[in-house]
């Protein structure tokens, strides 16, 4: 069964843009839907209802440097930057007021024994991050023993989550195991402005 078959009638997908691990996308385009598939990964969907602008990120913390309690290790730093990047992009494209932001979070499932409790640590990280920054979670679908597809309309803030079957999970698990082993994808830093 495809995600589209379960979508509510008012959820017009329009143009679908996939948000891959490491991506962060923000838009106010009414004809756009962000889509992502999550196993252990986390996606935050942040919406500014005043400006009708929203965005989605997608990150996976391999926790190479310790647990989520190790808040400033390399892995947690990567997650914090991923969250900050999305928050700042929505603020800059939106009303600029943090109090207007509505935050939904998804993912952190346990889909493979090889990934151990990476999903749970990712869930712990995002909950701790948002609590520390003073943000409430408007809604969430976290944890569990399954992968998810998340669709998010940036102009309305509506999200649709579909739990995937085991055949789809196998592919997601393979990708995530590879990411955990090599570390998260971070786009090369564009350092072409030289000062000194």
């Amino acid at each position: 069964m495809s995600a589209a078959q379960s979508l509510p009638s008012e959820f017009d997908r329009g143009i679908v843009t996939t948000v891959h691990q490491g991506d962060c996308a923000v838009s106010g385009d009414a004809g756009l839907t962000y889509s992502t598939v999550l196993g252990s990964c986390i996606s935050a969907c942040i919406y500014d209802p005043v400006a009708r602008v929203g965005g989605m990120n997608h990150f996976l913390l391999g926790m190479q440097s310790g647990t989520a309690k190790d808040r400033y290790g390399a892995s947690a730093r990567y997650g914090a930057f991923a969250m900050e990047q999305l928050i700042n992009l929505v603020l800059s494209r939106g009303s600029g007021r943090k109090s207007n932001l509505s935050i939904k979070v998804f993912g952190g499932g346990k889909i493979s024994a090889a990934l151990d409790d990476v999903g749970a640590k990712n869930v712990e990280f995002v909950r701790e991050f948002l609590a520390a920054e003073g943000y409430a979670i408007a809604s969430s679908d976290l944890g569990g023993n399954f992968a998810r597809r998340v669709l998010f309309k940036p102009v309305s803030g509506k999200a649709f989550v579909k739990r995937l079957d085991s055949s789809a999970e196998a592919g997601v698990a393979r990708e995530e195991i590879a990411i955990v082993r090599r570390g998260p994808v971070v786009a090369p830093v564009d350092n072409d402005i030289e000062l000194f």
Partner: protein
Amino acid sequence: MPKASALSVMIVDDQQSMRGICKYILTQLGFKDIVEAKSGRDALGKLEKGNVDLIISDWNMDDIDGLTLLKVIRKHPRTQAMPFIMATGRSDKEQVKEAISFGVNNYIIKPFDASTMKKRIEAVIGALT
């Protein structure tokens, strides 16, 4: 050569986690006197009480953003020569150019690690011991 443990650094960021990350890295580099400011306004209030040897400021903040903070610091005779590093996202190239035009000493693109932070600081104040 400046001794990191003898220098005072101010971190300006409205996100607690970012201040924590920055402080963690600066501590790794040997800095001990680290002042945290929760906003541009908080930074200016703390600078009224005394100078610091280096400011590392985020760009995006709710009240006074990093660029406005830089402009105010560069206008005030007591603080105009204060070393200032701007932390910014990788998509903010135009912001970096604007900050350069207003006298930022250097910039650091997030996400950064201790090695990058050290290089940026040393480019501004000299090799650390």
